[in-house]
């Protein structure tokens, strides 16, 4: 499944990936000649994170398990010396002209889209999500050939759907965002970027003095979960929100367990490159932490599905989340010591 399919014209190799942003950046870098994996891109970009977000602008509190959208591109530019050309054409016509001109030069381009408009996704799986990234790799008449890392093969997308997808409105509206690799180094010593990536991620998890970010955010999540019954309309709504915990951790392109497995793989690769037994041990620890986040996913999914959502069940779930906070606090402090 990970072997991939090749676009004949651009020679772009389509591969499935765990997450659309890390997957599309990795795909573009590989196409530009860099030999780098998705977990390595994620780790170097300090992708691992946690934030519990509650705001009057949000319909319901939510949590995220990775850094800000766009950070993967920005950090790989900074730490690996990649030069991206990013643009936000003003309207659909200009956006299509700009994209088509690049494709005519056989340059693959990452575009932000509303997932709902992707023609190749079966109707029963369609959902609006404006933060999705695909790579446009070619165009014949009115149809784009695209690489969507959640789809097993290269796919076709009509020009009409592409325009609608790039200018969808609502949260995280794409506003026509597109980028491509202008220049990428062929040989990079990954050792310094790895250390910088780890150091920043670990600091973000344990040193930020903000109560809803990092490990503090996990603890806040554990406490606030007990207040969710007061925030919901009814039992059905509570069940939906509790099941969303599982969906966010497992089904939204996180590589499983809220990116924890992907980070474990990154640490394993990093340990080899740096010849560091300490990092190899940390990788194993992170895999265990991921397994225990997955137990949270399963517990949330089970009680949500059965609507078994009394205070005792939520208390159990809250205690499991709190235990992950303790575990990750210890883990990232230890990681900081290893990378100095």
């Amino acid at each position, binding site marked *: 499944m990970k072997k991939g399919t090749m676009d004949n014209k651009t020679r772009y190799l389509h591969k499935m990936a765990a997450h659309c942003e890390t997957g599309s950046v990795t795909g573009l870098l590989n196409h530009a000649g860099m030999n780098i994996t998705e977990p390595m891109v994620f780790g170097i970009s300090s992708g691992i994170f946690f934030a519990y977000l509650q705001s009057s602008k949000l319909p319901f509190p939510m949590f995220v398990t990775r850094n800000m959208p766009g950070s993967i591109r920005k950090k790989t530019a900074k730490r690996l010396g990649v030069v991206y050309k990013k643009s936000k054409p003003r309207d659909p016509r200009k956006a299509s002209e700009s994209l088509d001109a690049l494709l005519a030069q056989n340059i693959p381009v990452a575009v932000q889209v509303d997932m709902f408009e992707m023609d190749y996704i079966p109707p029963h799986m369609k959902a609006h999500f404006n933060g999705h990234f695909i790579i446009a790799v070619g165009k014949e008449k009115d149809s784009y050939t695209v690489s969507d890392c959640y789809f097993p093969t290269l796919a076709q997308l009509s020009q009409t759907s592409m325009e609608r997808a790039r200018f969808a409105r609502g949260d995280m509206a794409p506003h026509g965002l597109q980028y491509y690799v202008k220049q990428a180094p062929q040989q990079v010593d990954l050792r310094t970027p790895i250390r910088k990536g780890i150091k920043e991620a670990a600091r973000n998890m344990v040193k930020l003095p903000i109560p809803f970010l990092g490990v503090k955010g996990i603890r806040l999540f554990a406490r606030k979960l007990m207040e969710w019954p007061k925030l919901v309309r009814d039992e059905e709504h509570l069940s939906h929100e509790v099941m969303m915990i599982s969906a966010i951790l497992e089904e939204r392109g996180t590589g*499983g367990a809220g990116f924890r*497995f*992907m980070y474990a793989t990154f640490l394993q690769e990093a340990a080899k490159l740096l010849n560091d037994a300490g990092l190899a041990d940390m990788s194993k620890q992170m895999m265990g932490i991921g397994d225990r986040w997955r137990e949270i996913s399963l517990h949330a999914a089970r009680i949500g599905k059965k609507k078994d959502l009394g205070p005792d069940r939520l208390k159990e779930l809250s205690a499991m989340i709190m235990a992950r906070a303790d575990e990750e606090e210890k883990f990232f402090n230890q990681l900081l010591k290893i990378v100095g």
Partner: protein
Amino acid sequence: MEPSKELKREIKELIIESLKITDVKPDDIIDSASLFEETNALQIDSVDALEIVMALQRKYGVHIDDQNLGRFIIKSVDTIAEFIAKEQAAKQGL
């Protein structure tokens, strides 16, 4: 490596056990049919898929990290068996 009939039966028993299903027997499940569609004796959802992933992990010591790829592995008894057989062969250095 072609997965054995025994492995497929074991997987079906594991699915039934992990989902605590009482009205379906291993023989009712079609090996090649999607577990997510009603054409099979079971029509699992994403929660069931996660239950199966955890059960496979416990029984066979395999890791299915990514749910996007996991969906392709959990698609049918055949795809699960192929994955397990491949993982077991890799562990034995075959």
